[in-house]
């Protein structure tokens, strides 16, 4: 046994079972039925199989997690399904594995996934392509489950690509509209850049592992071998971490690859809730947390991670300030919140990042579904300036949305209060005071823009036009029930991660500790913690108050400020011209190069060669074909001559 083995603690207790394969398989079966249903007239079957398969997956997940809890800390439930690749030293099994981290993820995915499926029953009720929608949604859930259940990087990659495809399919769900199709493509291409980096990172990793004599990409092996790897090739580790980070920025919509997410709002709202808020976009965070033993070996990479997270959080928050489209606000808010998570894992608080991931899944899904409910009531209208005083007509939506806003703003004792606090605390404690301050600023902005949206939409005077006013109605129960469930979750989800010493203390951190790498502990005094918490809460409340005074108390203040700081406003309004910048920087040159290759290389050079060869052969054949008399005997004679010559040569040589 290697000496390095010693500090990986006792061998983990592993429970082998064939239960886990059913978790992704059930939604996959749902997908199969959905495809069948979509191609026939029996659409209504997906009303049962769509949400039903996910509910069953949730039940199985609960069983699996309860099994996990019977094991001692650090245990895992494992299901080895089949051998996928076995070539040379590389042996790769299709294995599913549930440990503490995965247990959180599968419960989020199947639980919230089920609620969103339920919601979709109401939301998509009138859509003709309902069956297709549910089959995609099931496929997405299956892929996402594969992603989080995987026990090795390549299997993660299957899910990684699977969710990418589903995201593409669902963003462009209403593909008849060019804008939607474009948005889908944009998401796909942007993700592709990240995926390429992810793949390269994976290749380098397997190469490095091979050099150490253990060509494996299983997380177990990776984490066990990480110290050796770090000692043998520190720069390689940094490179791998950064490449994987690029992959994560693509999937999790971080700078510089965040541009696709706002456009992804073109998809149906449940999709935005499920994929682009609750689950898929957190895949990057999950991946970094999963590989935390690798990341802690490279402080430089971690710093990059933290910086990207913090900057994204602020950057997206500023853009959210001026958006008028409710879903766009939520989209930027999502980017910003994921920035928080990345910041959390970047400063070494992996459990904090995952904690925020969990709470965020609850309240962001709630907010998106609330937005969907509004949209449903408003016949598709999403401009918050055209709403107002919706609380009268949409009481349930209003209350739940308010809970979501409070939760995201970080008002105690709701979810984000604890999780965001944990991250900021960790940032402060790790000595990244600048990052802490950026995060704090972003937190204030978050509170501001969320309540800006809330006040404009639900409070004040109605600016709804008469036609729409007439139709305003509360959503049906399939939509409101998930809202209420999620609202409750948004309130209580944070309670599992109380600060040290209060009630059950940091249960969350303890639960995840065996799976995640422990960064150097930064002990900070209890009084400092209290002070930080007070500051954060104050900033949040300040943001809310600011929004209240701007938009409810004295409407028009906002406009005045916008005029005053016209430059900044325009800058924000135009989202920093990042899209345009990318367009100039990458797309235009790319198009020019492509045109060159198309017009010159392909059309002239390659086609010229190909056609030239064809023409040349044709011309030559004109001469030679006259040899083909069609007479069998001539051919036979030719054969004979060949035989004679062959025999003669053989004889000559022998």
């Amino acid at each position, binding site marked *: 046994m290697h000496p390095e083995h010693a500090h990986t603690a006792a061998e983990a207790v592993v429970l082998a079972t064939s239960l886990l394969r059913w978790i992704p398989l059930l939604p996959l079966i749902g997908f199969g039925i959905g495809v069948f249903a979509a191609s026939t007239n029996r659409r209504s079957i997906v009303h049962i199989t769509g949400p039903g398969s996910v509910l069953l997956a949730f039940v199985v997940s609960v069983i699996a997690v309860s099994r996990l809890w019977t094991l001692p800390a650090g245990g895992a439930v494992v299901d080895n399904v089949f051998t996928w690749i076995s070539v040379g030293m590389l042996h790769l099994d299709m294995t599913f594995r549930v440990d503490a981290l995965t247990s959180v993820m599968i419960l989020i995915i199947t639980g919230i996934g089920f609620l969103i499926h339920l919601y979709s029953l109401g939301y998509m009720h009138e859509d003709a392509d309902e069956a297709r929608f549910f089959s995609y949604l099931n496929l997405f859930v299956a892929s996402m489950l594969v992603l989080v259940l995987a026990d090795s990087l390549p299997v993660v990659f299957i899910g990684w690509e699977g969710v990418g495809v589903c995201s593409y399919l669902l963003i462009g769900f209403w593909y008849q509209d060019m804008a939607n199709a474009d948005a889908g493509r944009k998401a796909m291409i942007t993700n592709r850049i990240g995926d390429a980096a992810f793949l390269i990172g994976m290749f380098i990793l397997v190469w490095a592992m091979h050099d150490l004599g253990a060509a494996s990409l299983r997380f177990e092996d990776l984490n066990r071998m990480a110290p050796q790897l770090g000692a043998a090739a520190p720069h390689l580790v940094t490179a791998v971490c950064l490449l994987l980070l690029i992959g994560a920025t693509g999937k999790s919509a971080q700078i510089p690859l965040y541009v696709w997410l706002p456009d992804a709002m073109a998809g149906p709202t449940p999709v935005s809730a499920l994929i682009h808020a609750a689950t898929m976009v957190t895949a990057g965070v999950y991946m970094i947390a999963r590989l935390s033993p690798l990341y802690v070996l490279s402080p430089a990479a971690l710093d990059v991670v933290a910086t990207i997270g913090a900057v994204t959080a602020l950057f997206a928050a500023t853009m959210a300030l001026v958006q008028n489209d409710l879903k766009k606000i939520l989209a930027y808010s999502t980017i910003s919140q994921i920035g928080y998570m990345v910041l959390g894992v970047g400063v070494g608080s992996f459990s904090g990042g995952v904690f925020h991931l969990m709470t965020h899944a609850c309240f962001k899904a709630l907010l998106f579904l609330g937005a969907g409910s509004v949209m449903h009531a408003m016949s598709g209208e999403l401009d918050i300036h055209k709403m107002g005083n919706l609380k009268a007509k949409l009481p349930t939506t209003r209350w739940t949305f308010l809970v979501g806003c409070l939760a995201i703003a970080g008002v105690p004792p709701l979810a984000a209060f604890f999780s965001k606090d944990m991250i900021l605390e960790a940032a402060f404690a790790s000595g990244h005071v600048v990052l802490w301050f950026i995060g704090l600023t972003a937190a204030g902005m978050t509170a501001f823009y969320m309540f800006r949206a809330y006040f404009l939409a639900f409070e004040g005077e109605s600016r709804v036009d008469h036609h729409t006013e007439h139709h305003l109605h509360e959503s049906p129960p399939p939509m409101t029930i998930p809202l209420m469930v999620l609202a409750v979750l948004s309130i209580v989800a944070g309670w599992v991660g109380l600060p040290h010493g209060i009630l059950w203390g940091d249960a969350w951190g303890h639960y995840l500790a065996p799976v995640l790498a422990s960064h150097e502990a930064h002990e900070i005094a209890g009084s400092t913690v209290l002070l930080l918490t007070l500051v954060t809460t104050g900033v949040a409340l300040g943001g809310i108050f600011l929004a209240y005074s701007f938009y409810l108390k004295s409407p028009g203040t906002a406009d005045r400020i916008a005029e005053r700081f016209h430059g900044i406003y325009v800058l924000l309004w135009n989202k920093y011209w990042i899209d345009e910048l990318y367009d100039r920087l990458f797309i235009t040159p790319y198009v020019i190069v492509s045109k060159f290759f198309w017009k010159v290389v392909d059309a002239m050079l390659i086609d010229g060669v190909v056609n030239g060869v064809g023409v040349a052969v044709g011309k030559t054949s004109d001469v030679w074909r006259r040899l083909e008399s*069609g*007479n069998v005997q001539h051919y036979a004679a030719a054969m004979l001559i060949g035989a004679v010559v062959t025999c003669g040569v053989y004889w000559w040589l022998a």
Partner: protein
Amino acid sequence: MNVPVENYLVLAALIFAIGCAGVLTRRNFIVILMSVELMLNAVNLTFVALSRQLVSMDGQMIVFFVMTVAAAEVAVGLAIFLAIYSQRRTVNADEISLLRW
């Protein structure tokens, strides 16, 4: 009866050459097919002769297969010939040149 194997081989070579000549010079499609049979039989003869020379049944086994294939070949060949004849009213190989430019 101890005839050296060479004699059989030479005999086979001559039959083969005669068959060859038939294939090349005759105009009648059926006779060409017959000449092909001659060539096949010449080969059979060498197989059997060498089978005895080498004390191995493999040669005879192959002859068995050659016969079967020859039978199939004749059946199909004559059927093709009948089909052609019903369309073109000719049995001459030099008038049948469909596969040409």
